[in-house]
């Protein structure tokens, strides 16, 4: 099921869909795994073919094409026309955006932050004198903060704060155990913390306090504890803020990718579990939880 909740227009877009697609309030793009066939749809269902060797990525009003070799991005408009593009000399390893800025992390540790016009407003150079790879990046919804998971020996979470028209590093915290895995990261709406997920690990990073703690979901003693950890290994993916101090996480059973749950964490503590859910969309007072075969609307959602 493909779905998007447009609170401003009081609309829920949902349709059964088998392939790969990304969706926002202006329509959706269907694409194939081989990065060759891409079709851009408006909310009226009309479509145009997009000639590109890329995967589309949508977030916070950004429509981005990630080039098939993972070494370039292009911002596109509703019709799929390129607004601006940028090539990097290294593969992209991390990507996140707020409505105002787009952050891109690279294999060599370089970090770029672009504004909506494609102007680089922050750049931290990379290199291989030591391993500085960026494994994950998160931009706060208000664009005030950017955090990155970076490097090996030591591996660190670095926090940057917006300053005038750029960003400055405000803190860093060493992360153990280290791992070379790409991570997904999501800021809470109130900027208090970031949830970081990689493989079977879930971490809570308090931005202002600059500390990290491991989230142990299987230690939860509450009504939803039994749906977690049915046995075997799981993978976690940080999805997005669900308002206030809450963040949604996707849990996938490693042995069965059809066995999924959406978890909503409040400051790292389990708040809600939606077994069988694969994605969600959030607006003021409403959550749309997407399942393989339907949508559940949670009205009166108070994060």
């Amino acid at each position, binding site marked *: 099921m493909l779905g998007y909740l447009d609170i401003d227009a009081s609309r829920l877009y949902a349709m059964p869909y088998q392939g790969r697609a990304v969706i926002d309030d202006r329509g959706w793009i269907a694409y194939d795994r081989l990065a060759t066939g891409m079709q851009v749809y408006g909310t009226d269902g009309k479509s145009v073919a997009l000639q590109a060797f890329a995967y589309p990525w949508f977030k916070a009003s950004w429509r981005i*094409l990630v080039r098939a070799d993972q070494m370039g991005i292009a911002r596109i408009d509703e019709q799929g026309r390129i607004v601006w593009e940028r090539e990097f*000399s290294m593969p992209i390893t991390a990507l996140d955006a707020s409505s105002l800025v787009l952050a891109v992390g690279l294999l060599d540790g370089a970090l770029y932050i672009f504004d909506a016009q494609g102007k680089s407003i922050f750049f931290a150079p990379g290199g291989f004198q030591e391993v500085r790879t960026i494994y994950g990046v998160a931009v706060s919804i208000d664009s005030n903060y950017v955090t990155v998971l970076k490097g090996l020996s030591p591996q660190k979470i670095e926090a940057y704060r917006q300053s005038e028209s750029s960003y400055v590093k405000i803190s860093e915290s060493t992360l153990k155990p280290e791992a070379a895995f790409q991570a997904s990261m999501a800021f809470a709406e109130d900027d208090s913390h970031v949830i970081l997920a990689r493989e079977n690990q879930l971490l809570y990073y308090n931005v202002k306090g600059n500390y990290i703690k491991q989230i142990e979901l299987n230690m939860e003693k509450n009504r939803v504890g039994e749906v977690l950890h049915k046995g075997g290994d799981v993978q976690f993916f940080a999805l997005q803020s669900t308002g206030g101090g809450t963040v949604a996480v996707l849990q996938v059973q490693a042995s069965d990718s059809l066995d999924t749950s959406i978890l909503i964490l409040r400051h790292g503590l389990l708040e809600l579990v939606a077994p069988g859910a694969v994605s969600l969309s959030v607006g003021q007072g409403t959550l749309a939880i997407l399942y393989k075969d339907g949508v559940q609307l949670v009205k009166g959602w108070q994060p």
Partner: protein
Amino acid sequence: MKRVLFFCLLLRCLIVPGVDALDFQIPELVDMSGFGTLLGDVSNGQPHGKSLQTGAVYGRVPRSDLMLKSATADITAPSSGSVIYVQADAPVKTLFSFPLGGAMAIFHPERYVSVISGLDTSRIIQSAGANQSATPRELIVKKGDSLPGGSGSGMYPPNVFGLRLFDAQNLCWVNPIFLSSWIRDQTPPVIRTARLTKSGDAALIDISGVAARDARITCAQGNYRIYIDAFDTIVPGSPLYSAPYRFLALLDGKSVVDSSFATAKCTEDGLSFLGNAGSSREAVTADGLYSVGTIALVRGEHDLQLLVSDYAGNTSMLKASIIVR
């Protein structure tokens, strides 16, 4: 055969000297498409072969890796090193997956970094987890290890992988073709089109085909950019086409252009191929011709020879007589 091997060794030593210090061997495979080949020539699991799409297509740029087709779902690790980055295909379609799919970056001695893509890294992670700990601190790949690919990952069809090699000392992506000693390529590249375009002028002078052989080309004095559409086949009988390796222009017997796909240099604007400025789009026209260099034509009569070689030294040539007024 000896001449070809000698040429390979000579090119490897002269153009990519640092690579010699690296114990890196591309395993024997059933097919290969080379560094510099334009992205997007594999579709629906089947290679397109020798056909080019036309028009500006986002992402249609020279590739900085080799596309390798294995006989099995696995690929043999070309060298030993420490894994510094692992990404995996997302297990559900609602999550974004990066196009390289399952991929690993491996740090090698002599400050080389390789990236192998199209892997089933979830299996690698699971086996590493079983051997070490739940979250392995350090993953090591040994030369000859079998790396699983599964049923295709990211933009790669089943049994197809990407391999790129970065020289961190010289800040360039290296063409790893010279590290595959098993290839015996005796087929020269095919030149489909060659054009000259005068600086500041949109007019094209076609120097390929029947017209160029039968008639002299007349043009005005000035600097001309050379564009060549050519392809090569690395593995005999392969349906995959590759970029040629080297472009040489001789004007009245003297070398005036010598560019190659030995490396792609890192610039602030991306990658620089064939001596062009970054980004990589600068190296190719919208209709797929390589921009190989600039020549100055002064008044008089000139003989222009364009030589296009593959990595093994097999060469095709195009000649034109030019009268400059």
